């Protein structure tokens, strides 16, 4: 059963994604906020994919991407964001090795998220 890490600072969003993915046969671990996500990643626990919210206070999506690079974790990441702006520009994401296909804008259609996850996992 693939293990998905869901990172969002909004507990209700994390809950919804967790419920939906669980119903579709995934094992879901959720962390509320970036700091908890970092703790989890540093614990060395294995995950197959990460659904990552970009804009979070203190530790944000970019920090976590940076950390996974430093830790040399080759984990596929799907980015969730409420908006793209100068702070989290598409250019910056491209520089970090992402494409527009890796980004989902909130509010997300859950079946679209599911499809993206399946494709990512199939490509690994």
């Amino acid at each position: 059963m693939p293990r998905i890490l869901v990172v969002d600072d909004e507990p209700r969003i994390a809950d919804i994604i967790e419920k939906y993915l669980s119903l579709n046969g995934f094992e879901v671990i959720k962390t509320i906020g970036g700091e908890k996500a970092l703790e989890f990643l540093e614990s060395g626990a294995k995950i197959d994919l990460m659904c990552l919210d970009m804009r979070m206070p203190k530790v944000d999506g970019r920090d976590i991407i940076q950390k996974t690079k430093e830790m040399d974790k080759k984990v596929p990441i799907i980015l969730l964001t409420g908006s793209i702006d100068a702070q989290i520009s598409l250019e910056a994401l491209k520089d970090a090795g992402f494409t527009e296909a890796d980004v989902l804008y909130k509010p997300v259609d859950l079946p679209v998220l599911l499809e993206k996850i399946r494709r990512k996992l199939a490509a690994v």
Partner: protein
Amino acid sequence: MEKELQRLKAANARLRERNRQLRSREQTLQANNRRLRANEQKLKATNRRLRASGQQWKAANQQLRAKERQLQKEITGHKEAGEALQQAAEEWRITFDSIHDLVSIHDKNYKFVRVNQAFADQFNMKQKNVIGKTCYELVHGTEGPPPQCPHRRTLETKKPQHSEYFEPHLDMFVEVSTSPVMNAAGELVATVHIVRDITPRKKLEQNQRLSELGKLVADMAHEVNNPLMVISGSAQLSLLDGASGGDIRNNLKIIHEESNRARDIIQRLLKFSRPTKGDRKGININQSLDSIIKLIEHQFSLSDIRIRKTLADGLPLIVVDEKQIHEVIVNLLNNAREAMTAGGTIDIRSSKEGDFLRIDVKDSGAGMDDETLSKIFEPFYTTKEKGTGLGLSVCHGIVSAHNGELKFESQMGQGTTATILLPVGDKGED
């Protein structure tokens, strides 16, 4: 004997004659002598006179020489003064023409008396050809002074005036300042205009505003899309096969709450962008502060925070929307509380400062660094885990709409003082 007598007689006669002759000669000599004496005295007098006039002439000559020297000095002085004057005039003209701003001097009838080179160049004219034209025909292309004309206001007030506007006739944003030129009798005889092309600055400001707006829209999208994500997700979960009645009910409750959250964010944003004038009436700020303190005192004491008030007596009423001002003060108090995680004292002061009523909220909390301080009014900027970043933006909007000022002073580790200044006897913007 006879003969002897006769000889003696003759001798006597001769002697008499001789004596007469001698007397006559003596008289003549005496007369001569008198004349000579008279002449001598005349000569002496003449001599005296001559001596006197000689001295007078000498003095007169000296005076004349001195006068001549003085005149020569004056002539040189005049010449030098003339040259200095010419030099000064030349320096003035060079300076006047070196100014890049458009400078012009106008009479009371809006006519140009003098313009600098930059001014003439702007209109592709010679300086002398501008003189005598009216500023409105040349600068604005109108038949009379436009409403934004500061010259007219200077004529009315005899005081310097300032305007910033877009001048379509020149296709530029201009900053115009006019200053009165007064004569010794205190009458306004002319005005000096300085027109500055501020088009580049204005364009930059417009771009900055657009970029700020862009950031605001992105922040706004993020803030609203989060509750929308919850609403949409909860609805999608409810629509799945196998969703129980209890699940659906719970999801609907979440949808309702998140819809309210989105509504609140949008309302606060609207308030920030255009604070409503609200319902304004005269209030006693000390009474308001008392009632606010009563409401929150207990709650604050649970976080080990004491509120100390120093309210000035006899403060004038201020005409404000009481609810809005309450919101600002409560917001400042809540921020103060959140900055004092270890408890402490919040000082509230009211006082009068010139034409303003002043309210200070001082905490002994963590304080802010300069970067945070520079961003506190930015919408969506927050240092709090669950803050919307709209609180102080809204407060700033409310105070500004009351023609007041909201400012902060803070130092890391030294606490923060928030100050509200509200105009006394001002009904705010109309």
